């Protein structure tokens, strides 16, 4: 029997732009644009319908860098709505919305608590009859770049009742996120807090149980790096501090990466059909429940069409054709559950006997051996890529490229080709190799 129930959400990133899409028709773009707000609405509805006692939000409600007045106002309205329902909210600010940032002036209504930045503050939560249910403590980021260990400042107030810690932190320095307020799992486990309501990492994860260390992930995916269902946790706490968690998706648009086999496909037509079939299957899938989706398709398998598929223009055209149709449908029916193709990537292989070429004492053999060498040595590959694109990176484009890659890496100031970038580098290398083979062996008998 649960003695109380609360909601744990984080990383709302209201009104932040979605990344990695271009040439999106307005109706679709508007729906994706408003997805973070929709997620917020669903969050509020869910809190009310689930009759949670309170809500904890572990940072990054909005990106102050974006300076969206709209985002802040909408969030304030949502908080007022929750307050009017008698649901308390505990907010810890994170690196994207630190207290030092330009927040709009706002007098939070009764029951909406924002944790201070200068030290952990604790609130006692009572039930309607005045019985003490739990302590909720937390701390906000005072400045955008907090590199202190904030987790160490948490102390259980009263071990006899449930202790909840709300913090925006990077546990054990997850590589793909900015290492803010770093903490260690061991430290959190030993802290005496029963439930660590964390934020910052956009991928959902339960790092530990009893005590619970939980990342609910963000409430709405915003790029192809943030795929799958996004939402929040509804947590039931029982008398003996046992915790039962249910994930609820709140995302209004689902981002997906799907692999499609074009193994042995014989014609362009066939590849297009397989793609269309896969996309329709996504649209109809129960998991989506009528949500629109943004999809990256990754083609795989051995096919004689490899050369064609590897030429990005064909894939772009295929994606464009599909997207145009989706755009038309959305034009006529604004609520149409579109499936927008972010891109189609080919990881196919051709029927060229690469192994044979690799063994040859020839120019092509040398080339393939060189590529293989780069492929296996990341440092060398990075150096190579940097050397090759040096001119570009040094130019005005450089800062935008770094920014784009930084976004993917999740934090500013990473290496140019960060952890996620390496994957991309290998893909580029593959494509370069395919392209060269195609050109060099053109007209030859070696394919």
């Amino acid at each position, binding site marked *: 029997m649960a003695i109380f129930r609360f909601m744990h959400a984080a990383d709302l990133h209201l*009104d932040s*732009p*979605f*990344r*990695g*899409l*271009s*040439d*999106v028709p307005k109706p679709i*773009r508007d729906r994706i*644009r408003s997805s973070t707000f929709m997620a917020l609405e669903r969050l509020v509805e869910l809190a009310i319908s689930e009759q949670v006692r309170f809500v904890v939000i572990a940072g990054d409600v909005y990106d102050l860098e*974006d*300076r*969206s*007045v*709209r985002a802040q*106002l909408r969030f304030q309205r949502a908080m007022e709505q929750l307050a009017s329902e008698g649901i308390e909210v505990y907010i810890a600010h994170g690196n994207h919305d630190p207290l030092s940032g*330009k927040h*709009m*002036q706002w007098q939070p209504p009764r029951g909406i608590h924002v944790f201070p930045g200068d030290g952990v503050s604790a609130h006692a939560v009572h039930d309607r009859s005045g019985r003490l249910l739990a302590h909720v403590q937390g701390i906000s980021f005072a400045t955008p770049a907090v590199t202190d260990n904030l987790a160490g400042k948490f102390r259980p107030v009263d071990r006899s009742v449930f202790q909840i810690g709300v913090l925006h932190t990077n546990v054990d320095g997850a590589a793909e996120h900015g290492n803010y307020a770093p903490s260690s799992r061991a430290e959190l486990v030993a802290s005496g807090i029963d439930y660590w309501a964390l934020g910052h990492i956009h991928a959902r994860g339960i790092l530990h149980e009893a005590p619970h260390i939980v990342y609910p992930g963000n409430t709405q995916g915003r790029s192809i790096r943030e795929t799958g269902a996004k939402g929040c946790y509804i947590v039931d706490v029982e008398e003996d501090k046992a915790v039962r968690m249910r994930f609820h998706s709140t995302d209004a648009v689902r981002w997906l990466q799907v692999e499609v086999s074009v193994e042995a496909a014989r014609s362009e037509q066939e590849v297009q059909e397989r793609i269309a079939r896969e996309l329709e299957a996504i649209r109809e899938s129960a998991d989506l429940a009528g949500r629109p989706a943004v999809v990256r398709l990754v083609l795989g398998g051995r096919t004689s069409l490899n050369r064609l598929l590897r030429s990005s223009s064909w894939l772009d055209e295929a994606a464009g054709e599909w997207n145009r149709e989706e755009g038309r449908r959305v034009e006529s029916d604004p609520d149409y559950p579109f499936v927008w193709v972010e*891109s189609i990537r080919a990881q196919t292989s051709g029927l060229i006997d690469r192994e044979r070429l690799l063994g*040859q*004492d*020839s*120019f*092509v*053999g*040398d*080339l393939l051996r*060189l*590529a293989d060498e780069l492929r296996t040595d990341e440092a060398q590959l990075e150096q*190579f*890529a940097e*050397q*090759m*694109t040096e*001119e*570009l990176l*040094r*130019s*005005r*484009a450089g800062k*935008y*490229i770094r*920014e*784009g*890659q930084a*976004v993917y890496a999740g934090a500013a100031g990473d290496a140019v080709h960060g952890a996620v970038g390496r994957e991309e*580098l290998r893909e*580029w*290398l593959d*494509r*370069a*190799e395919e*392209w*060269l083979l195609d*050109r*060099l*062996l*053109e007209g030859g008998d070696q394919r």
Partner: protein
Amino acid sequence: MRITRIEIAGFGAMRDAVLELAPDAPIVLLHGPNEAGKSTLMQFVRSVLFGFQPRSQAAERYAPLSGATHGGALLLTLDDGRTAHVQRYDAPDAQGKRPSRGTVTVTLEDGTVGGEELLRRLIGDITEDVYRNIYAFGLTELQELRTLQSDELSGYLFNAGMGVSGTAVLETEKQVAAELERLFRPRGKKQTINQLVDQLDQLSSELRRSRSVQESYHARRAELERLREQLSAAERELGEAESRIAWLDKCLQSRQAWQELRAAELELQELPVRASFPKDGLRRFEEEKLRLTELQTMRDQLQAKMAAVERQLRELSPDGQRLALRREIEQLAEQASMIRSLQHELSNARTEDAQLAEQARLQIARIDDNWTEAQVAGLNTSLAERSAITGFRDRLAALERQAETFAAEAARLQAEKQRLLPRRNEAADELTRAKEALRGRHPGRWTELAPDERRQHLHRLNRALQSWRQAAWELAAEERRQQEARQRGRRMRPMLLALAALTIILPVGLFLLADGLTAILAAAALLAVDGVLLMMWRHQEVDGSRGREHIAREMQRWSEETMALYMQLSGEQPYGAAEAAPSYAGRAARSRSRMSEAGDAAWSIEAAASAVEQLELAIERWQSEERDLRRLADRLSELDEQLADVSERQQAIAEEQAACGQALEAGVDQWRSWLAERGLPTRLAPETALELFSLAEQAKQTFRQRAAVRQRITGYGSRIAEFEEQVARLFARLSEPLPDSRSAVELVRELAELVARDAEQAERQQALERQWNEWREELERTADRIRQTEALISGLWQEAGARDEAEFRQLAAQEERRQQLQQSVKQAISRLEWLVSPEKLDELMHSLRTMGGSELEAEHANVGANIARLRSRIEELRDQRAKLELELDRLREGTEHAELEQRREELLAELNRHVAEYSVYAMASGLVRRTRTIYERERQPKVLRQASHHMAVITGGRYVRVLAPFGERRLIVERHDGLQLDTARLSRGTAEQLYLAMRFALVESHDSGHEALPLVLDDILVNFDEERAARCLECLAQISQHRQVLMFTCHDYMRDMVSSLLPQAQLIGLKG
């Protein structure tokens, strides 16, 4: 291939010359002074192998100067040792044409003759150009790099071993470069990435602006607050100005009214001051005066009407006594008509009474003449009595019907008895006759037996006969067998004897031969066998005779048994089959006598069978007759039973009849006594009694009607008498004599009319009196009012201080004027009050008093201008406010900023896509470049490696490597210190050495698959220093191991060097 002889018919300056070349000398050095024909020889070798130069190039064609035949021949030793003679002349070929390259004839050792094709086969697919450049060249060719760069050679030089064509690599590199160019250039404008970056820059600045706008949200909100305050201040000011101008408007509007007010007030002050004048005095006076006149007239009229009424009253005089009794009189008058009709009813009732009395008399008479009315009335005719009568009637009728039924049944039974009796007698007679008939026949024993026993006996008899027959058959069979046994016994006897002998001999023998015990055992065994056989034989004999006797005995027993049984049944002896039997007794005696004889043939089986059959037939017939007899007896007893039954039933009916008669009598007695109880004549039948009851009922009805009529007569009489008495009493009270002559009814009616008249008069009298009284009261009131009015008039005069009417009227006129003035004052004030509220009236008066009309107008104009100014200011402020509000709204809900952010993201996405593309091409470019570097460094073509080797040899290790940059048609040499030099930077000699090394390498690499063509070098070492020339000869020596080398020189030192360094070389001197 080696050239062993050169035969020149005519070529240039040379004619009919033959040079023999040593076939085993690797190097042939031909030396001689200038014009000795060295170059001609070299050209001759080229020409024979590849054809003359075209006629257009006369210098190169070497046509003979003197008319000798143009051409000659080469004798070749092929690599496989065969010889070939190749001759080429400028002569017509087989087709009669005369090709410029001349006509070639190849004659092989084996006699094969061919033309160009055969020659091509011998020397391989090397073109003349290649041959001229790398096989047979002079200093001119050597000094030109170009000669190495022909397409044909470059393949060897640059691409060999690459696996792909160098051009493909170059082409690919070009494409990569183009793609990269298309996407990006460091300071480009049109490239995709550059354009995107430009857009991003632009967008970023927009975004910065937008962000600052977003940030200014608070400042703008504050500004909005300030604006709102200003606006409300201005609005307040405007409000004040507007109210001021409204006031001034009112002042101006009310000015006229105010002036009127002032005038009226002044006139009022001038009027004489009176203490008081009654309010509305004149009007009131006039009214009172008029009223006084009216009242006086009214008083006179009233007095006249009262006098008239008094006259009328005197004429009325109603009778008071009669009026007092008015109620009684009127009641009696109302009854009068009813009394009259009662009298009529009374006479009718009397008539009816007489009629009913007569009817009753007649009805009684119908019942019984002697009966009185009282008797009839005393008879109980209730429903119970009537049902008792019907009860009697039904019971008696039922009993009578029952008696009739019994009588009919008795008659029927009598008739039945009469019918049955004759039939019974007939059956008895028949039975007697049948019994007698049966008794007369068959006195057999079986008749004494019960049918079961009879059947048993018959069965046993048949079985005995059967057994007898069986025994007879067995006896016959036994006799046959005995006969056979007797014959067998005769055959067995000798065998027994032999066995007996053996029994004796064998044991004795054994005893003698073996031992005693064996002999004894054998003897015992044999004896036993003998015994057994003997027994068998004997037994057979005895058994046979004994069986036959036994069967004969059996047969006898069965015969007797059959006889005994037959006797038991028939009670007599059976008779032989053939014999006729006169009597039973006789036959029996005879049969017994035959039996005693035992085995008499007369009592044979056949006879017995026949007798038994006869017996069975007799028994059957007898049984059938016996059954008939039994049936007759059954019928008789059945008829007897029926008769007894009928008699029994007749008796029963007779009893019932008697009982019924008694019951009927009892019923009649009861009925009579019932009648007697009620005093009715006893001889009445129930039906008649019922009728009598009905009649009595009718009579009783009539009695009841008459009684009712009589009652009515009495009632009517008493009512009429009562009325008459009342009338008499009335008259007594009126103290009037009751006139006898007239009926009470009439009297009453008359009286009623009189009293009605009296009542009318009394009513009229009262009404007149009431009227008179009213008028009198009114008269008094009128008089009062006249007095009051007069008092009022004099009061008014007094109040006004007037002595008479005329004075009063003068005073009244003055008063009226004052009031008019006061009214106009009031009107003016109310008009002012209508313009301004009453509270503000004083203020208004003050304003009007203090300000003149022009002053007011001046201020009005002033304030109006102020208002216009304020209004435009407010308008302006409102515009600003609306603009700010809109802006803030946009900030709150607007998507512009978000759109910019989004657009930026999209541009970044697009940029990244193109960057990815660029990176792919950049990597491709890098890959190719790196591979090329590797290739150039580590995988130079064999030719270059070989050339490097030769170069190193020739230069004594100063230059270690020859390189061909990838895909480029140029060469680079690398010095021992690693410095790479372009050929252009080499000294002439070194350059020549390089080219020579390259040629050597090419020649070596060119061998595979065809003849090793001789190398012909025309004085190429002239620019070499001694050391390098020597090293070069070393190389040549090396090369000459695989092919013939012809060297031409005009230098003696060269000849000496060759002869000293290459002793095996053939030296041929040419004469100038």
